[in-house]
Structures are given as structure tokens and as C-alpha cells.
């Protein structure tokens, strides 16, 4: 059997290669899913590999002019500190990026939890999303942060979509043949002085090389920037990992939590209840269904608590998970 391995130097050449070879061709970046699944004989290695690592435009995190054309997680312009993350940017760059740590902390949490340091140096955010595992560690963070996936098609046309559209099912996305994920866009928060924080918490059996059994990303905006504790909840968002066919955002969270006291456990219980209702956890080799279901409210509460502490300017290094299991 012969295999074709291509190393295009531009996005244009990459999408052309994908178009030329049709369904035979698969883009490869870090290869941490593609190669591992092939070795485990779960998915054969494709006959045409289009490698992305030599396309400079795909690797890196850059400031982006604020674009009000995107709906945002926060509501209301103007916004500051928007970022564009090239699809082939490795997790190691994301978890250590100052802008991401400052404004999109839940994403830093997610990237910092992927595999091991070695995995994070080769595994990329574009691959993580395009692989569309229900257990992927960046999808829920991007859902609550309002991240958009930028897709370049065979003709060079660029479209942008939210993760709720991008994820279609386990291993399935909205990508059409020839499409390439080229970037992730994150709109910065409004320049209104509000205190905001986000966190992604994962239930970890061990402290490294772990995969999500239950994960939750939470984002909160506190209403009163003049009070010491930031005041009541003005806005909140919640997404879950590994308890449904895709990462899912929980509906109705903003409405349910608006005006609530962030130190009132009942508020987080309410979020946990809604999360449990929206989730469809399965039992598998990693956890019985009953245990997974019972962990949803626990992890949701921890995610919100970490997000609130960060909103109050408490420093919780990424990944927040490693401190969250200490009672």
C-alpha cells in the first residue's frame, strides 16, 4: 500500500491538496489522535496525509482587531483584547499565553490538562476540536467564552461558526470535504470594568495523562465592580464535557443565575440541576453512568467557584483542576 504525505507551505496549498484528494485526504497536525487511533487499529491511517506544521500562518496567537460582527459571550460592545489562535497552535503555547490566561482562563485550563507536557507540545487546538471527541478539553471552554471556529473551504472562502454548530456528534463536525479549520477566534470582553472569570474543571482520577470523565467550563460576570466581592452574578455560562455526544452548553444558565449571590451554594446547585437535566451520561469503562451523573453537579459547582474566585482577582494557576480536588 502506498501513502501520500504532503507538506504544503500555505493554507491555499493545503486546501487545494485536500480538494484534490477528496475523502482520501486528512489533515494532520500533532497527530496525537490520528496516529494513536491508527496504532490502536481503531481508525486506519488515511492514504493521503496533508501535514500542517510547515504553514506558519496556522501557528501562533495574535491580537485581533475587535469585530462586533461576532455575537459574544458577554453582550454589548466595545470589546478589548480579542485574539486569533492559529489552528495548528499547540496546547503548550495556549496554556502559557498571557492574554489567554488573563482573559480566557478556562481555555488555558483546558489546554493545560491535555495529556502530558509531551502531548501538549505537539497536540494542537485545531486538531483537538476537529477530532470532536465528546471528552475534548477545549470545547466546553470555548463554548462559554464564545469562541468561533474559522473554516477555510476549498475555494479559499472563510466561514466562522460557534462550537455548538461545529460539533455534530462523536467524531463528527460541520466540516465539509476539503474544509480546513484555520483558526479559533475569541472576542475580548467589553471594556466596562466588570469583574469576570472563567474556569474549566475536570474530574481527574490521576494528576496527569488523564481524560475527562466529567468536565465543566464556567464563566461568570459579577455586577458590582465597586464592591469588594464583585457583587451579584450579572452573567453566567456553563458547558459540559464527556456527558453527552458532544461538549454541550447548558441552556438557561444566564437567566437562572442573574442577580444571584455567587456565595450562595443554592445558586450552584441550581446550575448543577440544570446541567444534570441537559446531560445524557453513559456508563463505560471509565465510569458507571450513575457515578458520572452524580459527579455533574459536583464538578459544575467547582467550576463556578473557581470562576468566581478568579473574577475576584484571586490567582488560581491553570489548570484549576489540580487544586480543586483539595477539600
Amino acid at each position, binding site marked *: *500500500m502506498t501513502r501520500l504525505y504532503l507538506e504544503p507551505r500555505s493554507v491555499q496549498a493545503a486546501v487545494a491538496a485536500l480538494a484534490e484528494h477528496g475523502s482520501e485526504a486528512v489533515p494532520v497536525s500533532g497527530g496525537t489522535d490520528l496516529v494513536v487511533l491508527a*496504532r*490502536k*487499529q481503531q481508525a486506519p491511517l488515511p492514504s493521503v496525509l496533508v501535514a500542517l506544521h510547515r504553514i506558519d500562518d496556522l501557528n501562533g496567537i495574535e491580537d485581533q482587531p475587535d469585530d462586533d460582527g461576532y455575537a459574544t459571550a458577554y453582550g454589548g460592545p466595545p470589546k478589548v483584547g480579542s485574539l486569533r489562535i492559529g489552528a495548528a497552535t499547540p496546547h503548550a503555547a495556549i496554556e502559557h499565553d498571557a492574554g489567554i490566561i488573563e482573559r480566557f482562563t478556562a481555555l488555558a485550563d483546558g489546554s493545560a490538562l491535555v495529556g*502530558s507536557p509531551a502531548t501538549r507540545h505537539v497536540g494542537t487546538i485545531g486538531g483537538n476540536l476537529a477530532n470532536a471527541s465528546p471528552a475534548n478539553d477545549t470545547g466546553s471552554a470555548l463554548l462559554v467564552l464564545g469562541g468561533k471556529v474559522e473554516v477555510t473551504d476549498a475555494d479559499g472562502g472563510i466561514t466562522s461558526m460557534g462550537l455548538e454548530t461545529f460539533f455534530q456528534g462523536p467524531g463528527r463536525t460541520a466540516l465539509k470535504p476539503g474544509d480546513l479549520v484555520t483558526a479559533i477566534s475569541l472576542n475580548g470582553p467589553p471594556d466596562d470594568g466588570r469583574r469576570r472569570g472563567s474556569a474549566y474543571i475536570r*474530574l*481527574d*482520577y*490521576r*494528576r*496527569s*495523562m488523564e*481524560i475527562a470523565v466529567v468536565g465543566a467550563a464556567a464563566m461568570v460576570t459579577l455586577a458590582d465592580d465597586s464592591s469588594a466581592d464583585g457583587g451579584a452574578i450579572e452573567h453566567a455560562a456553563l458547558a459540559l464535557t464527556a456527558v453527552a455526544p458532544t461538549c454541550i452548553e447548558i441552556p438557561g444558565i444566564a437567566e437562572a443565575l442573574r442577580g444571584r449571590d455567587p456565595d450562595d451554594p443554592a445558586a450552584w446547585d441550581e446550575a448543577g440541576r440544570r446541567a444534570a437535566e441537559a446531560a445524557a451520561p453513559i456508563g463505560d*469503562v*471509565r*465510569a*458507571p453512568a*450513575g*457515578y458520572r451523573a*452524580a*459527579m455533574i453537579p*459536583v464538578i459544575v459547582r467547582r467550576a463556578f467557584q473557581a470562576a468566581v474566585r478568579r473574577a475576584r482577582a484571586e490567582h488560581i494557576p491553570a489548570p484549576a483542576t489540580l487544586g480543586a*480536588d*483539595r*477539600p
Partner: protein
Amino acid sequence: MGRVAAAGATREGVEGVDTREVGRRASFVRADGVPKVTGQARYAADLRLPGMLEARFLYGGTPHGRIASLDVSAARQVPGVLAVITQADLPPNRYGMCVKDRTLFADDVVRYEGEIVAAVAATSREAAEAGLAAIRLEVEPLPAVLDPEEALAEGAPLVHESWSEDASAYEGLVRNGNDCGYVTVVKGDVEAGFADADLVVEGRFVSDMAHAVPIEPHAVVADWQGDRVTIWSSTQVPFIARAGVAETLGIPEGNVRIVVPHLGGGFGGKCDFHFEAHVAALARAARRPVRLVFTRHEEFVVPDKVRHPMVMTFRTGVRRDGVMTASRARVILDTGAYASDSSMLTEVATMMVAGPYRTPNLLVEGHTVYSNKTPCGSVRAPTGPEGCWGLESHIDEVAAAVGMDPVEFRLLNLADEGDTGPTGQVYRAIGAKECLRQAADLIGYGDGDGEGVGVAVGWWFSMPSATGAHVKLNPDGSAVVVTGAQENGSGAVMALALLVGEELGIDPAGVSFVHQDTDAGPWDGGSAGSQTTFNVGRAVTAAASGIRARVLARAAEMLEASVDDLELVEGEVRVKGAPERRVTVAAVAQAAFDEGEQLIASDSPPVPPMPDNVGGSACVGRAVFPAFAAPAFFAQAARVRVDGQTGVVRVTDVAAAHDFGRVLNPVGARGQVEGGIAMGVGLALSEGTVFGEGDRAGRQSNADLLDYKLVTAADAPTISVSFVERPVAEDEGGPRGSKGVGEPPCVPTAGAVANAVAAATGVRLRRIPMTPSRVWAAMDGSRGEAGG
């Protein structure tokens, strides 16, 4: 540095130890360390021979079935395929360490999912896979035996329908139905002991299958030259592998040479004979060198060295004052589809569940049970961690029943010098109690109320075995050791340089090795049973001492001094008290060479005897371990933090105190303790095979490193170590009164962690691993379903 200094410091004041030796041992760096961490080391899978083919195996894929048809003719036509073999192509020779119950390839019946049915050699791995896909195999399902207790029941389906009369590989094997090794320990009068008791406590404990998981998978390369085959293999036991190849292929042992390049760990998973003959047979059929490298999935499913699922029941009689009067225990080892070395390991298991206690009246029964699962056998301290966990969990419950502190209770009941072991051996000076005191001190036992701290004690054997070594002292003052010993990664062979260096008065860095090659070194039992330093250490010391005598004699002439006035240190022979009168060892060796004398020596010292007064007439089935030779005693204490909402347990600290007799290489011994504890934490909390249900019953569901959860470096606890040195008599132990070191450290950890979890939560888990969902379920009895 602090750690090394601390380890060295424990040796201060030990009689007869040169302080210069202590310093040298404490700073010893093994010779294979740098090549391994820099990637220069070559492993079996790295080898490439001209024309070499790739091998792949076809597996039965089902727990139990009869082969209805097997047709490989289409596979032979696949481009690139140069050989396809099945049992039909080989002599019908059976093999097995305890029971000769298997053939290289399935013979009519498939007994577990990883049963090898056929093998293909082809010009590429993909061509070999295409060859496998072209084999037509039909297997008619048979009722599968999956539960070890049901396997023992009357009328259970038999995994092996008929045993030929000569199937037992050794005398004394007691068998019945699916039981391929029934063993007892009888001491005193157990009924009378129960009559003396004020209270009787019972308990039942179950451990899941667990795996060795060396980082290097099994890899074999075979190359024929005429009638002789050279096999490079990732084996821990080259000489046993050589015997297996000869037995199964029906060729003389002398025609087989096994060479082990660097071995990437084994932990028992590469003990015994495995796939060398399959690959040799392929290479012979293809007339080309052939290489086999396992996938990680194959590593979990195929080899017959996996930790046994065990079922243990205990019944212990105790007086109100805390003295145990009687113990009755039963242990079942699920050996899977083949007996492997399990029948003799059941003897070890009975000693584990009897424990290092002085209990005067004992009745322990052990069963070795066939089932349709991956065969089990030796993995580092086989049956030790599981047996110790069951017993030590039970002992905490017995202590609680009489209202005693677990440490006090153990100190009251632990064995000491002069006490009698389970099978009648009388203990010499042993450090069992002192180990417990030191482990408790190191962890700060009793310092905090209600904290999650637990202890466990245990014991393990040394394994006397035939040994031998050649040593040569070169004219430049360097030395070479030629040994059959196998370096498994523990550093045991590398550290033989310390013993040779000390004997010859030269820097251990100047000692190199020709080893793990069956054509070079004397026979050796391999990296198994913690035996390398214990046995080979005696051999290299004896051989080197022969050269030492000749060096001293020649130096005495050169220095015009009496041999008795000489010392051999730092590469020189010196006249004691007159350090200016000296000659280098190299100069002595060169002088000898110039006169035509080469300083070479060989030795094969006698095997230390087993303890006497053992194996009373009432003990059945004790063929291999009638007692524990030069036993090591130990205690560990663990501190845990339990997440009450998720059931996640973190082990924060482990304190370990071990009586290894005299410690020869403190850096190496400490490394073994730290690694053993990491392995033990995994067995306690996360390492266990999950079997499928329905169509996948009897098949492993987590046969990969994502879902079989080893402990990572980030999970490792803070470890403190203390050595309690109770040297063994010279003729009963290893060199200088040492005992085996490699296996004991992983034995007590799971028990200590379990007792710590019980202390932290107030709940006793009766199954390992204590996964988060099991702990979570146990903390609330209403959560039954999630307990798994």
C-alpha cells in the same frame, strides 16, 4: 543529595563495613544509566537485520471455543507474505512451568481472547496484517468460565477437559477439576485456637486482574544460521527462554542462543518463555530473519504474566487482650487459561495471607483456578500486594474488634527472633517489629486526630538458586564480568560492579559486563524472584576473591611484604601503615601478563539451603516454597486525602521501613523502594482490568494506557525510607548477609493505603483497585450500582 546522604547514613556503625565503601556505594551511578536516558541504548525492537521480515499473530478473539475451521492458504498468496504457520506446522510439544497445558499455537481449542492461532511473516507490517486478514478462522463458542469461585463449583465447565497423566511439570502438584494447584498450610490446631478465642472476626476481599506494564513491549528477533538460531528477545529469563524454544521446537538447547539487548523493564511480565519459539519457527519457515514487536493492546491481552484476580476469606480468633489465637484463611488465584507459574505462586499466596505473625494455630488453603481469561503468573512479588492488602485490611478489623490501635495490635502479634513461621521455620534475627516502629515514626503516626493514616506489614522470600560468574582483571586495571544474569532495569547487574570493585580494590566504574547472552555467561535464573544480587552477587564475589588472592600474592613479592600486611584500596595495593610502599593494581596485572599469567577466575558457589524444620506432614502441595529463605520483613505507612464528593483518593505520603539484611547499594535499594511504592499505589487505587459484558464477556475493556491507569510521576507520594539492617548468616543469605530487594517494596503499599482510606472515611473497601466510583459508592451504601 540529601536522600543519598540519608540512605548512606543508615549504614554508619554497621560492623565490618569500610567507610570508604559506604561513600562509594552511596554515590554509585550505574553504567547503563546515561545510554538509557540519552537514547543511545538499543532494545530488541531497535534491531534491523538484512532481509528482516515483520511478524504478526492471529488471535482466537473469544474466551472459549473450538476451532471449527482454520484455512491459511489464501494468506500465503498475499503479496509480501513469506510464511504462515499454525500448530499443524510444528511438533505437538506441550510446555508450561507448572503444568504442560499448552502448545505454541491453539491446538483445536481457544481458551482466551489472546490465544495465538496463527502467525504471519511478511516484508512489512502492513503486508503481515493483510496476511492475517486473509486467514479464514471459524471458532464455535463453548461455555466460558469467568468467575474463579464458580470455576471451583461442582459441574462447572472445564477449561482443560482432559489432562494427560504426565502434564504436571513437577511432583507434588495437587489438582482437581479446574483447580490446577491445591496447597495448604497447617500449623498447630486451628479448632483448639478458635476455642481459646474471645472473639472471631471474618472478612472477604477481592482483587482485580492487574498488569506488569513495562515501558518496552515484548519484542523478538530470530535469525537462523544452519541449524542454530540466535534470538534477540526482551526476556527477563534468557536461559528459561532458551529451554522453552528447544522444548517446543524439538531442537537441542545447544542450538539456541538467546541474547537480550537492553531490556526496557519487565516487572515479571517478561518472565518465563513467551514468543521466542513462534518467531524462530516463522524465521525458519521464511528462511529470513523475522522481528515481532507487540502493540500495547497485545501487551495486556496475550502474555501469560498478569497479576491474578484473587478472592480471599479470613476467619481470625483473638483474645480480648489482643493476642491472635487462630487463623483460618482461603485464597483463590484465578490463573486464567493456563497454569503458567501460578500453581507454585499459590504456595506464596498462602504465606502472604498467613502473614508475618506468630499466630500459633493456622489453617490456610490455596486454590489455583483455571478460567477463560488472559493467563496470570509472576508479576513483581506475585500475589504479594493482593495477599498483604487482604490480610492487613482484615488485621485492622481484628484490632478494631478488640479496641486496639492497629500499630499496637501488630507489635503484639508480629513474629520475632525464635518464633515459628507458618510452615515451621524458626526465625533468626528479623526486623519485623522494628520496621513497623520506624515506618510509624517516619509518617508521624498518631500525631493528628482523625487523619487518613494506615499501616501494613509484610514479608517476602529470597530465592536461593544456582549461580556462576567469570571475572577477568585486565592488564590496564579494568575488569570484565561475564555473567548469565539479566539486567531488567533495576540496576541489579550494574551494581555487581560495586562488589567486584571492592573485592579487587578498583573503581567500580572500571568494571564492565558481558551479560544476558546464553552463549557467554553461566546459567542464571534471570531477573526473577529478586535473585540477581542475592545469587550472582555471591558468584562474582567468589570469583573476584580468587583474583584478589593472586593480586595480593604477586604484590607481596613486588613490595617485599607479607600478604597479611597488604590492603587493596583505590586501585592500589598498599602496605598497611606504610602508604609510600604501594603498587597499582594495573601494574600488578601487567606484571602478571608479562609473565604469561592472565588474572581470570570463575566460580559457582554453593546454593544457600532452605530453612530447616519446614513443611510439616500436614502441609499439602508445598513443592516449591516449603518455607521462605532469608525472608525480608517490612512495614509501610501511608497518609491519604479522600475527596468526599468524588471518591478520588490522593496518597500524599508513604513511609517505608525495610529489613533487606545488609544493604549493599543504598541508591539502588532506595530506587526499588520508591518504584515499588508507586506500583503499590497504582494497585491500591487505579490499576485493574475491566472486563466487558454481554458479547464482550471475558475480554479486557481497558487494554491500553489511557484506561488502564498507571500512577504517573505527578501522583507519586512523598516517600521516606529507612533500612532496618538485620544481616543474614553468610551461608544462608546473599553476599555479606543481604536479602532480596526488588519485589518486597511493592507488597505492603496497597494494604497501608487501604487502611488509610478506611481511617479517613470510616468505610472499608473490600475490592481493589479502590477507584473513585467504588470509594464514592462505599461512602454511601445506597450508591450500590456505581460500586462495580
